[in-house]
């Protein structure tokens, strides 16, 4: 399931409900990304605003989810990504995957986050006391996503 929404979500409630009651499930792996308020050597963050491209966001996330399901034997997947203004300590994104065994769950969870970081159309605007600035993309995110590329056959 893909959810793109503005409201804050409850991490515990979402993970508790995910896959509950499915007897095939042997493992859930999850990742939660939070708004980081403090980075050494930079002014403290006041707020983070996520802009996105409605329509394309859902379309890209659905494609990423379908790719994960094609690569690993997954039972269920959940991707929640917020947009709008949020404060340090609030969750931004949650990815959870369930499978019969841990290996597929771990790998698929990492794959979903790596691909989401480079393909889902979201942009972060950081607010500090000295103003607002768009976050620049990191080359390391491309490197992380690239390692999932299948070699051409």
């Amino acid at each position: 399931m893909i959810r793109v929404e503005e409201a804050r979500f409850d991490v515990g409630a979402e993970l508790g409900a995910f896959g509950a009651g499915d007897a095939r499930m042997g493992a859930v792996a999850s990742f939660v990304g939070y708004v980081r308020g403090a980075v050494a050597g930079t002014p403290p963050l006041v707020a983070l605003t996520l802009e996105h491209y409605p329509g394309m966001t859902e379309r890209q996330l659905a494609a990423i989810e379908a790719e994960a399901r094609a690569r690993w034997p997954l039972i269920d997947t959940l991707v929640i990504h917020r947009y709008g203004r949020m404060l340090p300590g609030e969750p931004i994104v949650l990815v959870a995957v369930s499978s019969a065994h841990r290996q597929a769950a771990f790998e698929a969870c990492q794959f979903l986050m790596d691909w989401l970081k480079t393909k889902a159309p979201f942009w972060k605007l950081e607010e500090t006391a000295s103003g607002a600035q768009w976050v620049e993309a990191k080359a390391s995110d491309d490197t992380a996503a690239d390692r999932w590329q299948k070699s051409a056959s």
Partner: protein
Amino acid sequence: MKLRYFAWLRTRIGRGEETLDPPAEIATVAALVAWLKTLGPGYAAALADTRLVRVAVNQDYVGPDHPVRPGDEIALFPPVTGG
């Protein structure tokens, strides 16, 4: 065609979306971006370094040689930074 701009491309161009009718010879993404640069200083500033411009046609990522047609929804934006 409908143009959409996001993040700092939006703020530099000064609007989030608009409908434009480029000349008929504008047939590819690369030609469209080159034409947009001529529309004003905001466009020129936003599109100065095309290595930082990602393009989606009808909500799918495309390269510079991809065709553009009347009726398309074409989005220009910087590399994504979600997650």
